[in-house]
């Protein structure tokens, strides 16, 4: 359509028709005076048309019923909920389906009763993307945990296999002894050992259950030092295997953090595994991983420091980028997930070179609000 700017009415029609957002004009009773094509499309009224219908028809309950009173109240008191501003609201399509929309409303001053112009933008796509992102994030966090689990599986197998091995061998020995009128005292002792080892295996399983749990993040007062003690078991395997010394320096006066214990555990586990890996892929003579907790003002700091080669300066800015990795088998998600967990806790994760050339990662968390 060619625009003739000499005819104001044509000009206006053309603009309304071309607009991507829905545009509607309503009078002081809420009756729709004009609606452009985009508005008709958005609410699925291409066939029926909107002019002459009440605007409340485009709202779900209970907003629809409340709307008439709303305009009246505004006209009397000048108290605006949305007029002159804009916000995300829910609209109702002709088939009753609810859609997220961004609505801004302006007042048109006329010589008679005021009219209102509403501009409506469809947010369904944005909303869907946001939902998908949230879902993806949840999956990534879960995937990250699975990766961690995968890396730990050898360690877990070992920790469970040790007591199982002992249980099986004790039981087999007892079986053989029973065939030869064994000393009851000795047999009793063996039974005790079997029971002890079964409990030992059970403890490992208990600690693991925390790791494999998926779902909504929750917040509770969390003893950070306890979390660190709990993961030592998982670290132990990799550490032992690589002949690495672990230095713990836990502040006993550390207040509780308001956090998701599972997620924090995951972050620390990731950092420690990274540290161990850094030591294993370098030829550093001194092989130490240090975990420290301390209070800094009203923040809690958990730092994981290694004596490895550190991160080259040029890579530091990319450390927390998703899918950035220097490892041959890595997904590049570990630190990025850790960072998003830290941020979701109102904290952050940062890197700094350690004294003597290694890496130091610090997880900074707020402590539980006092009182």
């Amino acid at each position, binding site marked *: 359509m060619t625009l003739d700017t000499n005819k104001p009415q044509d000009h206006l029609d053309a603009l309304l028709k071309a607009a991507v957002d829905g545009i509607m004009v309503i009078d002081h009773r809420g009756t729709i005076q004009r609606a452009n094509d985009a508005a008709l499309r958005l609410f699925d009224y291409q066939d029926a048309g909107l002019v002459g219908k009440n605007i409340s028809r485009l709202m779900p309950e209970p907003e629809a019923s409340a709307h008439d009173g709303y305009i009246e109240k505004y006209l009397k008191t000048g108290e605006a909920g949305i007029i002159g501003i804009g916000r995300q609201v829910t609209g109702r399509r002709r088939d009753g389906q609810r859609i997220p929309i961004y609505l801004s409303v302006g007042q048109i001053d006329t010589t008679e009763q005021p009219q209102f112009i509403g501009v409506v933008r469809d947010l369904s796509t944005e909303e869907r993307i946001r939902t998908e992102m949230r879902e993806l994030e949840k999956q990534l966090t879960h995937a990250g945990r699975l990766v961690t689990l995968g890396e730990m599986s050898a360690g877990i*197998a070992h920790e469970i296999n*040790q007591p199982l*091995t*002992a249980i099986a*061998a004790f039981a087999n020995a007892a079986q053989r002894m029973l065939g030869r009128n064994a000393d009851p005292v000795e047999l009793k002792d063996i039974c005790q050992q079997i029971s002890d080892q079964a409990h030992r295996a059970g403890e490992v399983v208990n600690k693991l259950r925390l790791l494999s749990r998926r779902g909504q993040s929750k917040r509770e007062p969390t003893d950070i030092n306890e979390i660190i003690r709990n993961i030592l078991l998982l670290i132990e395997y990799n550490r*032992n295997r690589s*002949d690495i010394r672990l230095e713990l320096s836990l502040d006993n006066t550390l207040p509780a953090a308001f956090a998701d214990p599972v997620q924090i555990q995951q972050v620390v586990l990731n950092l420690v595994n990274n540290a161990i890996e850094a030591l294993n892929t370098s030829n550093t003579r001194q092989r130490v991983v240090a975990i420290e907790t301390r209070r800094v003002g009203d923040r809690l700091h958990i730092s994981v420091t290694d004596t490895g080669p550190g991160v080259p300066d040029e890579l530091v800015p990319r450390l927390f980028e998703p899918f950035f990795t220097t490892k041959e088998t890595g997904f590049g998600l570990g630190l990025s997930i850790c960072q998003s967990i830290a941020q979701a806790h109102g904290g952050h994760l940062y890197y700094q070179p350690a004294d003597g050339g290694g890496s130091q990662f610090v997880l900074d968390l707020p402590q539980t609000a006092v009182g």
Partner: protein
Amino acid sequence: MMDQVWVVDDDQAVRDSLRLLLQSEGYRVAVFADAVSVTRLTDRQLADCACLLLDIRLPGMDGMGLQLALAETAFLAPIVFITGHGDVPLAVQAMQRGALDFLTKPLKDHELLEKVAQAVAIHRQRQTELQSRQQVQALIEELTNRERQVMFGISAGLANKQIAAELDISPRTVEIYRARVMEKMQVDSVAALVRTLTGAGLLDQ
């Protein structure tokens, strides 16, 4: 002391239980918590071991490290690795370096005892072979250089004339050396001589 089964595992419960199980089968058992203590033993002490049950994963020197270290000594006992599932690739590598087998934890008793029995049998055979090799070597020590040359000529299937030509001596002299070799090596035929030398690992089959 003969026919000891040694267990190297860093887990006390595993050591205690395996000791008990093996003792209930009548074996003498010695246990070690790490690999390094085994490397500190003398050759004489190492000779007591008839089967080494070795955990792959150990603090400090690991099972593979101990396997390599023992290969440098007179250690004769077969090594049976005990591993977690995660260590199977390592165990395969250990097999390539001559381990008898690897068993995954938790161990099945009949499998374990079967392997131990097999290891002990192999160890006994290796000891017998070692003894006979030492005996044969002692006999060879008594031969003169010339006698040794003639002996290897005979065992290679050469005729007196060929040996004589090679050593630039008369066939008659070869005949005399030949009789002395047979006497000193305590055999009465060329076939018996070849058997003795092969058994001692001095000749290829």
